[in-house]
């Protein structure tokens, strides 16, 4: 049976997050592009958005994870990756290029698309398409790697000896 509480907190969190983005004016691509235009019409206001969010989240994150489990679920499910790998950098560069072209990142895209603003709905559709492309490519890579491992034939005389010669 699906529990209701975690569904309610997820919906409420999404609503609050959307309200925060609207209040912060992150839903205005012109504002975002001016924030990024450090050599031109630079508008530093959005730095306060990130500052306000981090100021609230940091202490309450560390306080929250001291509990054995979250309030509505049986366990915390937090990121485990630690290594800074090439795909983190490459993905961030690609995301930055898209963000700099449109002035829209994933959260605001979904908020403004939800309001029925047609060009942002188009952007969001393309964004979801990009995410789907990632899933397809990664699924294919896993399948290729698995079948390569299955078909790998090690001739007997090339098999590594377990005895030191």
């Amino acid at each position: 049976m699906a529990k209701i509480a975690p569904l309610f907190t997820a919906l409420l969190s999404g609503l609050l997050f959307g309200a925060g983005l609207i209040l912060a004016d992150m839903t205005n691509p012109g504002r975002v592009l001016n924030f990024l235009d450090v050599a031109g019409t630079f508008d530093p206001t959005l730095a306060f958005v990130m500052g306000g969010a981090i100021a609230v989240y940091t202490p309450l994150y560390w306080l929250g994870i001291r509990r054995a489990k979250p309030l509505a679920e049986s366990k915390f499910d937090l990121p485990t990756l630690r290594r800074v790998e090439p795909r983190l950098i490459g993905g961030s560069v690609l995301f930055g290029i898209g963000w700099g072209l449109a002035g829209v990142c994933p959260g605001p895209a979904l908020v403004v698309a939800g309001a029925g603003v047609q060009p942002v709905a188009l952007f969001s559709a393309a964004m979801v398409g990009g995410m789907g492309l990632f899933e397809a490519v990664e699924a294919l890579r896993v399948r290729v790697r698995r079948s390569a491992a299955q078909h790998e034939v090690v001739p007997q005389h090339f098999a590594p000896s377990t005895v030191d010669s």
Partner: protein
Amino acid sequence: MKSEWLRALTGGALLGAASVLLLWGNGRIAGVSGIAGVALRLKGGDLAWRLLFLGGLALAGLLAVALGHVQFDVAALPSGGGLVVAGLAVGLGTRYANGCTSGHGICGISRGSLRSMVATGTFMAAAAGTVFAVRHLGQ
């Protein structure tokens, strides 16, 4: 202008509070691109909360227009082809980067994650570089 940065600070605090709710309630990081991207795998037990969080975002936009009489100003957007290219880059890039402005920029930095600090510095620099190229080069 003072009222503007106060509004930004309040909006930011609300983003922080929403992220705290998802952590304390669901034990999850409020990263929009990850929540959306993994939802595409359509796995039963994990799907419902993701769709509700994303639905909450869309509903916030809908309610702002319907009840708050907010008018979203999107005049600065590029035209059709540019929009699609930008959307594809954001979708693909955020998934390879394991996060975006919310998951890396807010939650990750707060968690003291080196990966998130590197990612945030990288996508900010790439975005600023792109805006520089579009607005100040080749004109």
